[in-house]
């Protein structure tokens, strides 16, 4: 099976790889970069667990091939805070019981980071709209929405 060389920046660090064209970006991050914080739920675009930030925009990494990210600048859940630290969004998820099993959490946290960067003072309706593409099957959404409100408030200082 032929492979292609790729190079990208992930969480500020250069990464190189040699991949089959059919390898998704999610699989490249998990298997080749060993960044297993990016989760895979449905692998066909429905659940949002695999959300990462590519060149500033939150996207589903199961619907991109790794070769398509050649040259791109990526942020995954591992890159949102210094090692051992929590970002304000992660902190707020903990405070507000925004997670239970944690499977969906990386997708939510990454989506919320991208969302608050664009809209730092969202209304509750805007928060619901922004999170509609992320599914949680166990916590319920109320704590998650409160977490986004808390994160927005704490980031506003």
């Amino acid at each position, binding site marked *: 099976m032929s492979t292609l060389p790729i190079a990208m920046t992930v969480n500020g660090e250069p990464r190189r790889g040699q991949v*089959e064209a059919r390898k998704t970006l999610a699989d490249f991050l998990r298997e080749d970069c060993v960044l297993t914080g990016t989760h895979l739920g449905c692998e066909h675009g429905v659940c949002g667990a695999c959300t990462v930030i590519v060149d500033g925009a939150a996207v589903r990494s199961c619907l991109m*091939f790794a070769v*398509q990210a050649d040259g791109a600048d990526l942020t995954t859940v591992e890159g949102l805070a210094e090692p051992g630290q929590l970002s304000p969004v992660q902190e707020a998820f903990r405070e507000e019981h925004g997670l239970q099993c944690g499977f969906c959490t990386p997708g939510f946290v990454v989506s919320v980071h991208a969302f608050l960067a664009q809209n730092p003072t969202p209304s509750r309706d805007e928060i619901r709209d922004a999170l509609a593409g992320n599914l949680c099957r166990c916590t319920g959404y109320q704590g998650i929405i409160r977490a986004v409100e808390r994160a927005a408030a704490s980031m506003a200082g």
Partner: protein
Amino acid sequence: MKPAPFEYHAPETVPDVVGLLAEYGDEAKPLAGGQSLVPMLALRLTRFEHLVDLNRVPALSGVERRDDTLVVGAMTRQATIERGAQAQAVPLLGLAAPLIGHVQIRNRGTLGGSVAHADPAAEMPAVALALDAELEVASPAGTRMLASADFFVGNWTTVLGDDELLTALHFPVWSGRCGFAVDEVARRHGDFALTGVACGVELDANDTVSRVVIALFGMGSTPLRARAAEEALVGRRPDADTLDEIGRLAVADLDPPEDIHASARYRSVVGAHVVTRGLTRAVQEART
């Protein structure tokens, strides 16, 4: 890895894209935002020997105003249309975009992909049909312009040949006292619609309707223009009773699909109300 193996091509110009499409024929497929194609590959509903990625062709994206026409490149992202100031010249684009999936999907999904994919329940094909958008299509033989009314053939099927690429969509810009609406009923926010409408209304100085377009989605194997209903509304005052009547007329001769989500009768009954609601909003906007 779930998709079957394929050879990946990343050309940078339109002639190179259509050259590859011509060379590989029905073994090749363009890859736009991937938000429909990649799930189909992952589920192995389809497979291609060659994928021709359009994401590295700069000439395919961008929004440009040319007199009374807005030209939108096929690879323009749905999110760009949703947020961009330029697309506001064609309000139906900005009204339809937020109804497509979710923000992470619109950050990748493209206008051309939506239209070329031709899902019968998708919003953008109905917007193109409502406005009689002209579709610019390239092939090794050159460029041709197609009317939206001639483009959609059936479920996920268009007139495009294997070596043809949708490169841009040309939307007429309306002026005068006009208003627009996209309305739909879906099971959940972001789902494909069970039934929906994209419509535009222009009023004259006496508040009568001088022009109206109504395109339905989710109501057949392609988006559909409700031409009889349009004709019946022109020249009349759009009061509540009239718009009720037009809503019923718009769905009168249709044979909507029936599936696990909704019966054909449900789609007809609700579809009529959706048309009335959309027109009501478009009229309100035209008056302000």
